[in-house]
């Protein structure tokens, strides 16, 4: 294990009745991507807000590059970049003006700011729109500017809170490439996401977070090994036949088989399992009405790890679905 860029120990945070973080721990190695995977309201944004010195934890501690986020917040702020869920850029400023403002406030040498702004505008495909007010930008452009703004000061540690939300597939792939480039240059990235695929493609390690707790912390390969690489969904004609199918398949496949209504779902290691499944169903005289084979989603990870679906526990403040929280001011 190399140097630790981010250290999180026993972090808790409560908003009124809601336990947003119930004691989380993890470490992120320098120069790697760490994914926090979970549904809305799991506590991902709360964790990011604490790590970026926006919010104080109730208990526990966290360090960024050896600096405590509470006791030495100022030093942390010189070392991080943050792109949030809300594309927090000024709509009345142009793209270029936004980058300059953030540069100045991040204490970048003024003579370096114009060049840096140009470089980022070009890299994020915003050169043409650079001198137009942001309110004329599309959602995707605003998102890209938000990420660019997090990079003006060349932060060694970058926090990305659901960076690809609202991006189309091209935009998402471009951003993924960008993140890989940054990491190749030695930047450490902590990103939150609701998509297993995104965490899988980018992260060296993934922490799955549910109701304020880390319920798994593993490499993507490790997580998938627990999970099976494929999900098979068998639609039966009705519930009774689905029940029989589940019973039949459980004999060989154990608790990897679940039933929901007339649907039987199981995780498989490969095509072999599918063959076995079809053979046993056929032998048992049960004909499926439909069969679907797909990549596992975050929901499947959740079902597997927790036994429940990845439901939105989105009570407002938990994960920054912000309006209610902000109305209440200092929560």
């Amino acid at each position, binding site marked *: 294990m190399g140097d630790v860029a981010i250290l999180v120990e026993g972090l808790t945070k409560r908003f009124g009745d809601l336990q947003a973080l119930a004691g989380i721990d993890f470490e992120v190695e320098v120069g790697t991507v760490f994914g926090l995977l979970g549904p809305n309201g799991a506590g991902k944004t709360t964790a990011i807000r604490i790590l970026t010195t926006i919010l104080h934890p109730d208990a526990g501690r966290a360090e960024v590059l050896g600096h405590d986020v509470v006791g030495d917040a100022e030093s942390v702020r010189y070392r991080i970049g943050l792109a949030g869920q809300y594309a*927090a850029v000024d709509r009345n400023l142009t793209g270029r003006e936004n980058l300059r403002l953030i540069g100045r406030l991040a204490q970048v040498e003024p003579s370096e700011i114009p060049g840096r702004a140009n470089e980022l505008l070009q890299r994020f495909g915003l050169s043409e729109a650079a001198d137009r007010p942001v309110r004329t930008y599309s959602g995707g452009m605003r998102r890209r500017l938000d990420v660019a703004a997090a990079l003006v000061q060349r932060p060694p540690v970058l926090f990305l809170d659901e960076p690809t939300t609202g991006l189309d597939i091209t935009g998402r792939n471009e951003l993924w490439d960008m993140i890989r480039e940054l990491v190749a240059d030695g930047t450490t990235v902590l990103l939150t996401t609701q998509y297993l695929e995104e965490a899988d493609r980018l992260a060296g390690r993934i922490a799955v977070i549910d109701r304020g707790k880390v319920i798994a912390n593993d490499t993507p390969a490790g997580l998938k090994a627990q999970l099976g690489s494929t999900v098979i969904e068998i639609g039966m004609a009705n519930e009774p036949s689905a029940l029989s199918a589940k019973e039949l398949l459980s004999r060989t496949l154990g608790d990897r088989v679940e039933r929901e209504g007339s649907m039987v779902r199981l995780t498989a290691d490969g095509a072999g399992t599918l063959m076995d499944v079809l053979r046993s169903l056929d032998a048992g005289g049960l004909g499926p009405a439909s069969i679907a084979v797909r990549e596992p989603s975050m929901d499947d990870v959740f079902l597997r790890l927790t036994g429940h679906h990845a439901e939105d526990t989105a009570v407002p403040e938990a994960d920054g679905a912000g309006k209610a929280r902000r109305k209440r001011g200092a929560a």
Partner: protein
Amino acid sequence: MTTRAADLTAQTLERRGSSAMRPIRDALAVTGRNLIGYRRVPQLLVFSTIQPVIFVVLFRYVFGGAVNIPNYQNYLMPGVFVQTVVFGAMTTAVGLATDLKSGLLERFRSLPMARSAVLAGRTGADLARNVFVAALMAAVGFLVGFRVQTNPIAFLFGMLLVLLFGYVLSWIFANVGLAVGDPETAQAAAFPVVAPLIFASSAFVQVSSMPGWLQPFAKYQPVSVTASAVRALMIGGPTASFVIQSLAWCAGILLVFVPLGVRRYRRTV
């Protein structure tokens, strides 16, 4: 970028950030940003200029006839200058609430910028806007027959007092904006505070014309004493007592609302 190279970058930023000038630099950066907003969204300026112009016309030509004050335009305009900056201060609340809602303040709080800069930059930009609006209202005043009865220096001091008072009120509304965190709510919350202060005051009519129970409030509240002070400086009469009362209000409000606002900014978001 190795860990060491990365930390060198951070150390360069830290060196620049440790300058004693940082609070001023950052406040200026935020002020500049807010002023660009006024330039790009002229509606904001229109809100703070059209409304006082309408007041001048209404009071000068509609209610003025019913008001038993000779040369009413000379009585009216100092009151209008003051009410202009009082209404204008509401935009401080709206501006901060907008930034809070958009998540911009959240980003600012993750940056190594002076903690005072957001509030100083907001109130600073609103002061700059008030300079513009006050000059415009002076011009409107002269058009409807307002004439300075004292001397240009006293008039200038009167205007400075108007601007100071507007700046001070901005700090009250900065607290309102951070507390409600939503622009529409901010406006709705600010109006009921502002309206009695403006209308139950000596800004447009004499306090002696009001019912007895209202007079003590109307006589000593900040808008009244400031309007009376500005009026004395511009059209004559005893000045010292009103100016002192007005400055005392300004000092008192700043003493309470600046620390309160900064504290709230640190905790909010």
